[in-house]
């Protein structure tokens, strides 16, 4: 019989982890590295089970599971293990004349007991990657995987309990009730990956305890295609980035295309050609794409396609099979800008193309919408690249490729505005779960009487000179010449 998770359980859980944290269990370098290496063992010993769970939950092809979940995690763990000593070392900071004689540094300190809530589309990657950050920074952590990927959730619970130190790392499975109970507790940080709607609820719950948050949300990531691009490569990359990444169900999935009326037919042809090369003439039978996660999402996407003035804009695909939870790669052209498919994040295998008279107009279209997690541009035009990078506000910008920035540990990965706040990956994960404590060491020599009352004009003048770091003036005042 499965024990029901109740309020008392949530409180007990946090109390226990806090005790472990206060006892110093998670602070030492040895503990952190050991836990990270155990995560590595999970990846090494259980890849087939992980692939199988992902196939159960999402119909995810083996390559995607192996590469985009397990291999990325392995890299992330290895990087953390290699760099941890460096990351944990304090940073020296400069001091100035006004605080002389002193030395200063920034010490990285764990926040305490943190909560990671992950999403269903990349259940292993989005659960363990933040946990890597939490552990390397020396925190105790509770992970709540998504209930919409149940096989993955239970595998995660089983493996983490088996391999990691359960006095400091725990998994709580469940849905809305369990999440709500967890959110009532006081955490030292909450890391959430998911939708903007739930992101608001998380932040509001966090506000009650002044808990800082990282919210990795979504948005409609636009792809702007310039006519001077290499169309074949562009099409391949878009397809691999959209349908090749969980069938469009990814936060940085190319959501819609912006290109000129003139160039659009060529874009459509290139996409059709490469789609056939990748998935064959009968894409519904292809094993190389994930299915739609569940019937709720299937119905949501169906509704988008069936909307009046949208259904007649389909130029490729459109086939659906509710039993198999499959929708064929579908391309649409010039759907109304206020249709549902152009107002909500699609998160599925539908790709609308919006044509413009002039590529310049893309800036206004993008700017009129909430800020996305990613924005893409395919072009050879240097000026356009610079303008795009500077003026399009998004979590991250990729030129001439799709989604790859996710795999680069030296780039911060996170959103802005509706697409989220905070970032992670590489050292940014370590930073996300650390408090950077400022430490100033002052010496007893050289105490300035000017700091103390009674205040006089002389003292004021000297202070002014000090503040302005005006050496000449300082001497003048001291010598009584000013």
């Amino acid at each position, binding site marked *: 019989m499965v024990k029901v998770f109740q309020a008392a359980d949530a409180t007990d859980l946090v109390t226990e982890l806090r005790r472990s944290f206060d006892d110093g269990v998670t602070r030492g370098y040895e503990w952190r590295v050991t836990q990270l290496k155990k995560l590595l063992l999970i990846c090494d010993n259980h890849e087939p089970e992980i692939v199988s769970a992902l196939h159960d939950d999402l119909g995810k092809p083996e390559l995607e599971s192996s590469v985009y979940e397990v291999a990325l995690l392995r890299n992330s763990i290895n990087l953390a293990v290699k760099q941890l000593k460096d990351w944990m070392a304090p940073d020296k900071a400069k001091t100035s004349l006004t605080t002389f004689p002193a030395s200063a540094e920034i010490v990285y300190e764990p926040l305490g007991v943190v909560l990671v809530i992950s999403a269903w589309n990349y259940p292993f990657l989005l659960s363990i990657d933040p946990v890597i950050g939490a552990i390397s920074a020396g925190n105790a952590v509770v992970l709540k995987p998504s209930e919409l990927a149940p096989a993955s959730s239970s595998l995660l619970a089983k493996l983490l309990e088996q391999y990691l130190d359960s006095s400091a790392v725990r998994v709580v499975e469940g849905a809305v009730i369990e999440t709500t109970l967890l959110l009532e507790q006081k955490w030292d940080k909450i890391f959430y990956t998911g939708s903007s709607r739930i992101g608001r609820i998380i932040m509001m719950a966090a506000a009650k305890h002044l808990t800082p948050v990282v919210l990795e949300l979504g948005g409609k990531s636009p792809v702007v295609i310039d006519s001077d691009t290499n169309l074949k490569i562009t099409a391949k990359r878009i397809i691999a980035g959209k349908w090749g990444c969980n069938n469009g169900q990814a936060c940085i999935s190319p959501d819609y295309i912006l290109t000129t009326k003139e160039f659009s037919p060529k874009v459509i042809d290139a996409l059709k050609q490469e789609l056939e090369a990748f998935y064959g003439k009968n894409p519904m039978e*292809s094993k190389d794409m994930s299915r739609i996660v569940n019937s709720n999402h299937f119905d949501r996407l169906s509704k988008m396609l069936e909307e009046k003035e949208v259904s007649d804009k389909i130029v490729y695909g459109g086939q659906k099979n509710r039993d198999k939870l499959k929708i064929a790669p579908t391309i649409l052209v010039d759907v109304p800008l206020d249709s549902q498919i152009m107002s909500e994040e699609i998160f599925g295998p539908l790709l609308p193309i919006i044509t413009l008279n002039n590529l310049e107009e893309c800036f206004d279209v993008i700017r009129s919408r909430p800020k996305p997690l990613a924005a893409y541009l395919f072009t050879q035009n240097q000026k356009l690249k610079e303008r795009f990078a500077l*003026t399009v506000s998004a979590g991250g910008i990729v030129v001439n490729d799709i989604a790859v920035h996710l795999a680069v540990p030296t780039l911060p990965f996170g959103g802005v505005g509706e697409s989220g706040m905070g970032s992670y990956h590489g050292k940014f994960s370590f930073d996300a779960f650390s408090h950077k404590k400022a430490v100033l060491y002052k010496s007893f020599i050289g105490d300035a009487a000017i700091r103390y009352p009674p205040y006089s004009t002389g003292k004021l003048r000297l202070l002014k000179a000090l503040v302005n770091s005006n050496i000449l003036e300082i001497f003048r005042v001291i010598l009584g010449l000013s």
Partner: protein
Amino acid sequence: MERERSMEAVKETVDQSLREMRETFASGRTRSVKWRKAQLGAIIEMVKDNEEKMSDVLFQDLGKHSTEAFRDELGFVMRSATTALISLDKWVVPRKSNLPLLFYPATGKVISEPYGTVLVLSSWNFPISLSLDPMIGAIAAGNTVLLKASELSPNASALLAKLIPSYLDTKAIKVIEGGPDVATILLQHQWDKIFFTGSPKIGKIIMAAAAEHLTPVTLELGGKCPTIIDHHSVSKDMKAFGCEENLWRKVGILQWTSLYLCRLRSCRTEFCFYSGTYIDMFKPVIRSFFGENPKESGCLAKIVTKKHFQRLSRLLNDPRVKASIVYGGSMDEEKLYVEPTILLDPPLDSEIMNEEIFGPILPIITLRDIQESIGFIKSKPKPLAIYAFTKDENLKTRILSETSSGSVTFNDLMIQYMCDALPFGGVGQSGMGRYHGKYSFECFSHEKAIMEGSLAMDLEARYPPWNNFKLNFIRLAFREAYFKLVLLMLGLTKGV
């Protein structure tokens, strides 16, 4: 009726201001480094030209002496703006990121992008610097900004509302005056960032309001900041330098002025842990600072409002607390004056030991072993700052690794505020986010990652249909096992 009408007017003003600021931001004007530098220069000019007026309002609102006003507000702001002005060219340069070989020839960098239209809410204790310093960060980062100063320092707020429009770009930088009802109206709107200085209680309200719009926040809050005095380890030093008195000057007194100052600032020291028996050192030092009659010295700030005075008086009136007064304790409700007061070992469960004091009252807790102070500090919410006077390396290490606070300063008080290479901000109940120096610039910027790939080179293994070769290829590539990768391509190995 009157109030409703005026609130309607405020709503109109806020709508209009937001609209104008958003248009200005969209026009790109605030992105130009030249514009930002001009505004920063104008802030310096504004403070320089109006030093006397600013000192006056600080005296009117808080009874602050002009030297303190300069040290902690005016001089501080000018220095902050100057730093930003000098460093801006460096700060705006994109930072190159090294990409793993796997991604060659792609390049990566991070650009600091302004959030857009930001809201700064400042508090009454340092009304000038807590308003202008965050604004300097917001402007340096290229944002448009609206400031609401605290109504509890009405003269300072009014002066800022008058001066800012005449020195700065009014289409981008605006000021609104008012209290909680104006703040409520402001918080109903969507901002791209909110910067708040004040109490934890209000901080929670701000964050909850920001959550509605997924607005990132920086909260600079308060907390009981403890000072640990390890007398044994420092007294030798003090004697050696013949300045034992200086220790008390630092602690007690810096304490008082900073207490006053700080009473205003929340990182002032709330209580001292101390092993030693030199409390009597405090008395002559207080006398040397403020004379026999501190009330008349002109160097002590007054309590800001009657409500705050009554709160302090309530804290002191607890009979057990009253019994622990060893110095001072007199109060004058009419003049809003509370004498510098020292308490020796007040009960740890009294209100004064559990609430933020924010007044010129210094509780001293004596311990036989200074190490006990660490346990005490850990049992309380994380403060904005911990101060420790000690030369004991072991104690220093313990303090650093076992306690958590926004910052730690050894052998001084409050000075970390002036060191602009150090981030200034809290953790836990004392806040989130940080600023000062370059951190102010970062506080108001979105760090945007830019990656550029090449259309020239392409790897077939990236694309479906999938097969074992491609799977092995990508696995090896990810592991950066390039040699094995070459073998795979030459057909000399099956792969992983």
